């Protein structure tokens, strides 16, 4: 491999100017087409705090042996990846035509992170259309909280059924709820025109130049072998 000098770098760019320009223009055009035809995704983010159930002793101090979040945080996190959980009503509010494909698409648009203390879930939702995103997030929040608090009620009834000496008022309950507000993005978050144009064009230029250098080396070896 020979040494590279500044003059050679300059000559290299001069010799490959056409490739650079064509690859760059092609990259820009491809990026424009991609950005125009890709649906504009808006983003909703919200935090759900999970319900908790504690048992109170008779003298009103909290007995933490029963302290648990309802539902269990892993179950809650995983449920958002279950397409069967998505009802037709939610799909319609999210702007989808009810179908199993739409359920799977919506599931992949939802991202869930659980807090280290297992008490909260941070959800982000990215789908096309600002109104759809807002309505969808509200529908998901409503459905989730309904499900969680119904589960909390069911668990409480089971405990009461097993321990007849206790009453519902002996339990401290914290219902699942929305922690803070619902945040909707001001504008679409994907695709980002400038980043995609830069990225596509730059990568295309680099790849084109690399392919050209490989082809030249192959050509050289073929000539040498002849």
């Amino acid at each position, binding site marked *: *491999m*020979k*040494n*590279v*000098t*500044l003059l050679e*770098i300059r000559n290299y760019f001069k010799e490959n100017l056409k490739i650079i320009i064509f690859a760059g223009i092609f990259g820009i055009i491809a990026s424009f087409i991609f950005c125009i035809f890709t649906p504009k995704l808006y*983003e909703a*983010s919200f935090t759900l705090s999970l319900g908790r159930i504690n048992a109170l002793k008779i003298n009103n101090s909290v007995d933490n042996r029963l302290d648990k979040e309802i539902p269990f945080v892993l179950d809650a996190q995983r449920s958002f990846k279950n397409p069967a959980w998505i009802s037709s009503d939610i799909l319609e509010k999210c702007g989808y035509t009810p179908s199993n494909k739409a359920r799977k698409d919506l599931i992949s648009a939802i991202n869930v*992170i*659980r*807090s*280290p*203390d297992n008490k*909260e879930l*941070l959800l*982000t939702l990215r789908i096309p259309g600002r109104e759809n995103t807002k309505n969808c997030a509200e529908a998901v929040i409503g459905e989730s909280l309904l499900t969680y608090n119904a589960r909390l009620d069911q668990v409480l009834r089971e405990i009461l059924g097993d321990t007849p000496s206790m009453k519902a008022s002996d339990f401290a309950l914290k219902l699942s709820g929305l922690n803070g507000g619902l*945040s909707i*993005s*001001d*504008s679409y*978050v*994907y695709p*980002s025109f400038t*980043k*995609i144009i*830069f*990225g*596509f064009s*730059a*990568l295309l230029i*680099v790849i084109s130049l*690399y392919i050209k250098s490989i082809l030249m080396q192959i050509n050289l070896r073929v000539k040498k072998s002849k």
Partner: protein
Amino acid sequence: MNYLDSLISDYKKNPKIPLIFVFCSAILYTFLNVYQLPVFFIPDILIFIFSIWAIININQRLSKLFIISLCLIIYFLSFSPEKLDIEFNNKFYITIKPLIYLLLLYFISDIKIEFNIKKITYSILILYPLMLIWSITFYYFNNGGTFLTRPYFIFENNFEIPLILSCFIIVAFIYRDKDIRIFFLVSLAVFLTGSRSGLIGFGLVAIPYLLSIGKKGFIFTFSLFLIVVGYLVYVRGLSAFNFSSIDRIQTLRGMFAYFNNDFWEILKHPFGVGIYKKIPIFFCAPLGPWAEWFTGSFFNCDPLLFQSYFTRSIFQLGIYVTFFVPFAFYWELRRVMGAVLPLLILAPVIAVSLSAGGFSNGLSFIGIIFCLLAYNQTKRLQT
């Protein structure tokens, strides 16, 4: 007469220049400290100016691996997932600096510039402990007699230590000057900084040094090393060396918790979460006051809060890129310097990467540039 003696004799003949230099350095430190001026950009400006000069004079083989670096930079800038719309922007240029430095390294690794840095490296080794002493003295008189356990010159001392250790590597292993006084100056510098990662880097570099000097020298220098360790334990406290209570370990655990404490989950994110995403508030809450100091907002959880290059990069760039960077640095330096010397040169940078910027630190990269300059000049003189 070795170079240090000749330098001291030059300074004695002409004491004005070193005195003015020390005096100006002390004034600079005081001025920056009093007015709290930003200095973070200075090393990068110096690297930028030097790189322009080096590329203009380039005359070396160019490794094809630079394409990987270039493609990674393009990917992270253009295709990293976006943060939440409601969140503040990250200081992502710091995150991609290791890849930029790597790209520059490919163009300057076999540098042909004639620039004598012998005087600079020796002067840095002599000046830096003096500046640390000045820092302690200045703080003492300005803060009601409080002793400063983490003195520094211009930048935080975790950023300055790799440069000092690079200068030591140049003197001891490239110029092959095993003068014990140099080791003493470096020990004093590490001693005064009170840096744990600096101690690790110093230990890694001291081992081959200790093995290359005679028995008497070994006893003296090993004792110095133990004194440095003892002082650090004293000034930082034993709890600072308790593995589980080290803040960098806790942030590593916090980062790991993001991936559900599952190593396979980290492997499944080949390019991490990207350079734009924030640390979710759940994982950032323990870092809250630090977030407020660093970014101005309790809720602005920039992944730079992870501090350590390894923790931050595994989160943002992915585990493969995180370990690709040191490997690529080593592979390029190995092409020029052989297999062993690059390990020594990178040891302090890797050690500091456990605690601070490391490969994204401009001063560390300046240290690597110094090593390249010194090596290539020494090689040319020998041929």
